[in-house]
């Protein structure tokens, strides 16, 4: 009896194997030999893969409940958070494991860079890895858009602004990105398709290539000073050494991978349970220019760099830097594919790594703590200082209301309260003329959004009239210079219904 079962099962397996070649495909994955000294340094790649798998699983579950339409996205997240059993945990896991994945990818990449594992014959592995880094970041960026809240608007706003600055085709690029001139329903559908179909598909394909290359070239040994990579002899030497001293991946190296991945899993699970899901922050309201500069951590440094850069060079840097960074990363193994691998013999590489890490770290840290970051609830919780309202005309009072309502104080302080991203406006009436104020409000500039289309001419006039009364001596201006003549601006349409916006 048992015999015949064995026979049937064996037969079935044999049949499957002969048709699919599954075992002969998987076996090398399990048995391929890896260098004996490949210790804990090598676990980060596996951990990245594990977090990606978690993203796939939690992502599929979330996709079954998430409504990718501008009208329903926010509500559906509320629904997942509050009504689906453990829905919040699912969102939390997806969010924190995505952060963990970025972290693992970055550490993995640092290790490969510092140990110069990208040298011959693993150049292609590095390049695929760089593409995977971009895929990971793109997934994180598009993922933060899925929350469809104010942060999402901010991320998109910056992205659209960057696109807009490309010469000649800028407008078209922005339209492609947003699905129209403005952030709207089409934008969300677009990013949803990217986030759940295009990018994961691409990532899985690239991971496949990355793995195939590992099997083909083997993983590198720990670098030793004096052990030089020479493309002519390297492959033969490596194979010789692996044959002599290597160990099979299963169970030797895999054990360490599993222990580390397990620990990371527990950590991220605990983090998710303790901190809960990320966002969504406030409901996005398309009529309010959102000033929340809190993109997710991975992008905080970009934001800080933009904020600190002198406006004159911003466009140039925005357009020139990204291609340079991409080319430098991709081209690195071609520029240096032979020679020493040990960090102690490559001071230039180590110094540049430390430099880059410090700059990125500092920028991120500044993004977190910076005093110039907006105060998001300023528009509803910080009263206009009463002394700035004494003796003002009704129009100037409306100007004070425009300033609150348009969230100027998220970035600008009055009476010492408010954001510090832009200069304080306590004394702006004596610094700037009427025309300069109008231009600043309509056209923005220097990290201030252009309010042009978002404020009617009456609103612009009112807020400028209010600002002209903000002077050192605190004394109000006796008249509004030329307020009546100044409504020549093109927009004479009735005031949009602001109180109803976004409902």
């Amino acid at each position, binding site marked *: 009896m048992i015999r015949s079962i064995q026979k049937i099962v064996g037969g079935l397996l044999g049949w499957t194997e002969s048709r699919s070649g599954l075992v002969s495909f998987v076996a090398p994955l399990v048995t391929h030999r890896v260098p004996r000294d490949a210790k804990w340094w090598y676990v980060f790649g596996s951990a990245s893969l594990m977090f990606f798998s978690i993203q796939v699983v939690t992502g599929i579950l979330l996709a079954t409940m998430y409504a990718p339409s501008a009208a329903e996205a926010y509500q559906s997240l*509320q629904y997942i958070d*509050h*009504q689906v059993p*453990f829905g*919040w*945990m699912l969102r939390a896991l997806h969010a924190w494991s995505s952060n963990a994945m970025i972290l693992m990818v970055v550490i993995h990449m640092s290790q490969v860079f510092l140990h110069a594992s990208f040298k011959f014959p693993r150049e292609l592995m590095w390049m695929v890895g760089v593409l995977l880094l971009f895929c990971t970041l793109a997934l994180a960026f598009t993922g933060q858009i899925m929350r469809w809240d104010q942060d999402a608007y901010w991320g998109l706003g910056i992205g659209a602004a960057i696109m807009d600055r490309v010469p000649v085709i800028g407008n078209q690029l922005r339209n492609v990105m947003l699905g129209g001139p403005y952030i709207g329903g089409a934008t969300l559908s677009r990013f949803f398709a990217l986030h759940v179909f295009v990018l994961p598909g691409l990532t899985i394909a690239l991971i496949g290539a990355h793995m195939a290359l590992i099997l083909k070239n083997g993983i590198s040994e720990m670098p030793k000073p004096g052990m030089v990579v020479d493309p002519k002899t390297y492959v033969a030497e490596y194979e010789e050494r692996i044959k002599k001293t290597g160990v099979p991946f299963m169970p030797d190296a895999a054990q360490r991978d599993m222990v580390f991945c*397990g620990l990371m*899993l*527990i950590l991220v*699970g*605990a983090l*998710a*349970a*303790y901190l*809960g*899901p990320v966002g969504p922050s*406030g*409901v996005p309201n398309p009529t309010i220019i959102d000033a929340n500069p809190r993109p997710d951590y991975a992008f905080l440094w970009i934001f800080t760099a933009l904020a600190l850069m002198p406006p004159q060079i911003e466009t140039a840097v925005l357009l020139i830097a990204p291609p340079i960074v991409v080319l430098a990363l991709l081209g690195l193994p071609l520029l240096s594919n032979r020679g020493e691998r040990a960090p102690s013999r490559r001071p230039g590489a180590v110094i540049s790594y430390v430099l880059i890490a410090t700059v990125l770290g500092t920028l991120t840290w500044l993004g977190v703590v910076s005093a110039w970051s907006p105060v998001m*609830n*300023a*528009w*509803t*919780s*910080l*009263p*206009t200082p*009463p002394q700035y*309202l004494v003796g*003002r*005309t*009704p*129009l*100037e*009072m*409306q100007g004070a*209301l*425009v300033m*609150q*309502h348009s969230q100027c104080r998220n970035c600008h302080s009055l009476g010492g309260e408010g954001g510090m991203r832009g200069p304080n406006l306590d004394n702006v009436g004596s610094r700037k003329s009427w025309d300069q104020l109008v231009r600043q409000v309509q056209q923005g500039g220097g990290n201030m959004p252009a309010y042009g289309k978002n404020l*009617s*001419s*009456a*609103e612009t*006039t*009112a807020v400028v009239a209010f600002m002209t009364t903000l002077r050192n001596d605190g004394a109000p201006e*006796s*008249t*509004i210079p030329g*307020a*009546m003549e100044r*409504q020549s601006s093109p927009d*004479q349409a*009735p*005031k949009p*219904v*602001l*109180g*109803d916006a*976004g*409902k």
Partner: protein
Amino acid sequence: MMLFGVILAAGFLGACGKMSATDPEETVVLTGSQAALMNYAQNCSACHGAQGVNGAARQLADANYLASVGRQALISITTNGVPGGFCPGFGSNDLVNWISESDAKTVTEQIDKTRVKTVAEKNAEQFAHFVDGLLQAWGKNGAAISIPWSVRSAPAGNASSGQAVYATMCQSCHGAPGTTLASTAGSVTDPNYLRLITDQGLRSAVLFGRPDRGMPSWSGPFPNQAPDRTLSSQEISDVVAFLRSTASQKQ
């Protein structure tokens, strides 16, 4: 497998500590009026002034005003704002952070799995509690005045009779229509100003004045007028119609 168990356990422990994104244990429980004032500070004070006075938008800490507007209209404005004006509605936001005892009950019910409230339902209740708290804090002994507050229940206005009312009752402070010359209280016929304020806003301004800024209410006293000269509901409608007409003439 064991790993998975640990994760589940960790998740479960977290869940017990949290239940949902709103943790009732973490919220401070206050009396209705305290909670309302804190919500006011968070959501309204920027425009209506720190203590409900001396803001850019109208004074709300005024018992008779609150009584005249009425609970229902106050809830509706908190939820939907003033359409066409700068008063934002909070209906779609979850902005209410401090909850009172009665709200705490709402939140407990929300956790009760048998009956989960939608955000809209929850907000409707919280906004009602907010307005009740506000009425407790600022509306004590308030009495509704005899003249209707809402433009919808006000008589239709006549701009030309309004012009006469303006000339006698308002001009000494606000200047002749269409001038931007210095006047004590600033122009109210500036077309830009009129494009920003609603008819309701104008009616409320004339009816209740701006006590915090020296603008008289319907009951006066008005400069150069007998001390018992008051404005009627009709006169108020007329003057509002007149102010509107000055803006449309311009355009």
